[in-house]
Structures are given as structure tokens and as C-alpha cells.
């Protein structure tokens, strides 16, 4: 039988670690989306102005 609580604790520690690192170094979904929208906009612009 799998020890689900231990697996869950490891998962929680990984999640909390990722949260801490993201907060410390300025990573986040909003920024990721901002970067992506800029990339797709510049791709569109470069294609449009060819």
C-alpha cells in the first residue's frame, strides 16, 4: 500500500519551495503571460510588416 501522506508531504514541500522561489525571483503567471503576449505580438508584427 502506498504511503499517500508521505507522498503528499513531499508534494507540498515542493509546491511551497516553488512558491518561495517564484516570489523571491519574480516569477509568476502574470509575468509569464506578459512575456508571451509580447512575443506573439512581435511575431505577428514581424510577419505583418514583411
Amino acid at each position, binding site marked *: 500500500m502506498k504511503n*499517500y*501522506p508521505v507522498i503528499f508531504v513531499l508534494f507540498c514541500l515542493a509546491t511551497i519551495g516553488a512558491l518561495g522561489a517564484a516570489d523571491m525571483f*519574480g516569477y*509568476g503567471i502574470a509575468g509569464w503571460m506578459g*512575456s508571451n*503576449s*509580447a512575443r506573439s505580438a512581435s511575431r505577428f508584427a514581424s510577419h505583418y510588416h514583411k
Partner: protein
Amino acid sequence: MTDRTFGQRPAVQSVGAFQCPTCGGPIALRAVGISVTAVCRQCSTVIDTANPNLRVIQAANKKAFDTDIAIGTRGELFGTMWEVIGYVRKWVKGTVYAWDEYLLFNPWEGFRFLSQSNGHWTFFKRLNRAIEGIGRNTKLTYDDQTYTVFNKDRVFVDAVQGEFYWRVKTGDESDATDYICPPYMLSSESTDDEINITHGVYVEPNLIKKAFPYARLVTPSGVGACQPSPHGSQGDTIVRLGAIAAGVAIVLHLAISGGLPNKSVIEVTGHPIQVMPLPTSTPSASTQPAGGAMWSLPGETQTAPTAQTPQTDGQPVVTESFTLPRMTNIRLDTATQIDNGWADFDLTLINETTQATYPMHESVSYYHGLDDGESWHEGHNAARTWLSSVPAGRYHLVIDAETDQFSKDGQLPFSLTLRRGLTEWSNLWIALLLILIYPGIVLFRQWSFESQRWSNSDFKPDGSRAASIDSSETESDE
């Protein structure tokens, strides 16, 4: 109540083997000297074996049916070899709810009961003492555990087979009350002059199959009254761990957020971008007012943006240099005075040392009007963009704009603020979602399991009567 007896075993001198007084069939007792009632397998007549004349308690003339676990079968349960010597089928009066009870016997251990309902099995031992409030209270304490009432019914004996150490016959009635504290159950059955209290524990069907391999076992359906939750102790642990982890995540996020600078690096206000109409192939365009002009002279018609509206290209604005002391996120907030028009901003953050560029794009559009007397608006004349994990260094920002609106002097008024080291709340929401999703599933499964359990009860988990029972009783009282 005080004159009732609590399960004392009668001391009788019953015979070991005899012939049925009704049909003459042979009957052999297994608990010789203890059993006081026996049922003939040939004709189902119930006989008083404690009576020297083998008095007939209940005459019958039908062949005994086969029970799922055959009378006389032996099987090992909880480390003891038990022999099935009796069977009683009980019925809740006025319902279709019925269950089987097998009487087990071991010469050294005495008697036990094995109860089967909807394929779920409970192993009962009789208690030779009273429990205060049993049959009356909705909650009981036994062995430092709290039991909640689960069923309280008038039951009658529907069928009997084998032999018993008490007087029993088809049609006997009693008041039965069950209390549960999974995997345990406390059960009382009372008549006018006797109360029997038994304490049971849920038995997994596979253990019954192992003990009685030749038994015809019913496939379990639903949830047994005292069936322990399969998500039980591990589920509770996971919910507790999830709550702790969520708390740690919140505290950590708030602590880090408190230490973030959340500082404005650049503020560009009242610094309009010079925008000029692009050359157009439309001959009349040069003679018309610039499309989308935000301000016009009295009498001059302001045109709505159309397909013929010439686009404009702004002169890039380069901000003064600024320093990001460490890797951080940044946020750009842009506001314009766009009115029924649009503006696109291409913002490029340039690292002056490495020449690395970080392009961003912001689109602003704001339209409003009146349609059939109803005002409407869509879009905003402000925009916000985030950028993650920008490395430390010295930067400047290049702002380029296109719009279909500009003032008479070819300017697009706007303001821009760049901030660094901001709290991204979405990080916390995502972390909480990830942490709580599994405990949420566990809680849902536990709730679903308990709902199924209590759907078979007339009571609620807090011991109160279920609403449907209350209303039906109220109606019947009236």
C-alpha cells in the same frame, strides 16, 4: 428496566440428539447442554430442547431453506475456530429492510453473532452489562468512544434455523437500536422482560470468504452501517497536512511579499508621444481632417475610426536609465486619454550592458456610444503588463506607439509607470490550489462515503432524526 436480565446464559440440560416430535426427523445439537431451542431441518418445527418432553414451540411443515453459510460450517475468524449453529433472519416491520444473523459457537469462547446486511458483515459479542441510556439516548459513550444512533426499529423474526441458547421462533418481535462508531457498533434488542446488548466490529467480506470458503456471499452494495471509511485515517491525515501546508504557503508568501520593494522605477507623465499620420493611398485623405482626432475646432466634424482612417506611427520615446539591483519582476501601467479609439504600445526594455531586450506589448482601446437610447462602452483606456524574472542590471525603456487617435498637434498623451519587485498574488493562489486539490478530493470522497452510509439511516450524523422521518411522523401523528 432493573428487573431485566442482561444476557445471562441459561443453565439447561438439553439432549444431544433426538427425533423431531412433528416429523420424526433426526436432530443433533452442537451446543449440547446450552441450546434451548432447535429447529428441525426437515419440517422447520421449533422445539424446546430444554424440555424433557421436547415441547413444540412452533409447529411447521416446510423444508428448511439453505442459508448462505450452511449450518454446521466451521470457519476461523479473529484467531478462533467457530461453528455456525444457528441462523435468524430479521425484518424491520413495515419496510423491506432485512438482515441475517448467524449464531457462532466455540466450546471455549462461547457464542458470537455474525450479522450480514447488503453484503456487509459485522461480528458481534454479547455484553453482560448494561449501558446507561442505550435504546433511549442518541449518543452513547462506551470504552471512551462516542457512538451515534443509526437505527431504531421494531423488528420481527422472519425465519429461524439451527439451534439457539434462547427461546426464539418466527414472528418474535423486539425493539432494536443500533449505535455506530465505525468500525464498531453497539446494538440492543429489548423485549418486555429482557434486553440484550452486543458490541460488534465490521468484518471485511474477504475475511468472511476466507473463513467460510464455501459460503454463498452476497456482493456488498452501498456502505455498511459501521463500515470504516477506506479514506479513513490516511484521509484525515492528508486533510490535516493540507491545512498545515496551506498555512505555511500563506505565511511564506506574506513574509516574502513584505520584503519585496514594490518600488516605482520610472514614471512618465505628461510626456506625449509624437505621432504622425502614415502616408495613405487614399487621394482625399490629405484634404480631410485627420481621422480619429481627439480634439477638433468648433464646427469641425470628428470622424469615427473607419477602415479609411490612416494609421499613425509615433516617434519612439527613450526613458532615462534605471537600475534593477537584483532579479525581479516588473509591472508596466499605461494610461491614455483614448476616446472611441485605440492605441498600441510596443515597449522594449533594454539591458544597457548585455543589450538583451525584453519586448512587451500593450493594447488600449476604448469605445462607447448610445444605441437605441442605451449607453454602452467597451474596453479601457489603460493597460497593465507584467514581466517575470528580469535579471539585475542597468536598463532603459523604449516606447513606441501606434494609434488611430491623436491631438491636432500630432501628440498622443499618455502616462506610464514601471514598478519592480511586486507581489504576484497568482503565485499564492496557484500554490494553494495545488496543495488543497488532493485534500479536497479526499474530503469529497469522505463526504460521499458518509452520505451513502447515512442514507440508510433514519437519523443524521448528529443523532437527530432525518427530516423525511420527522415530517412523516408529524403527518402520521396528525
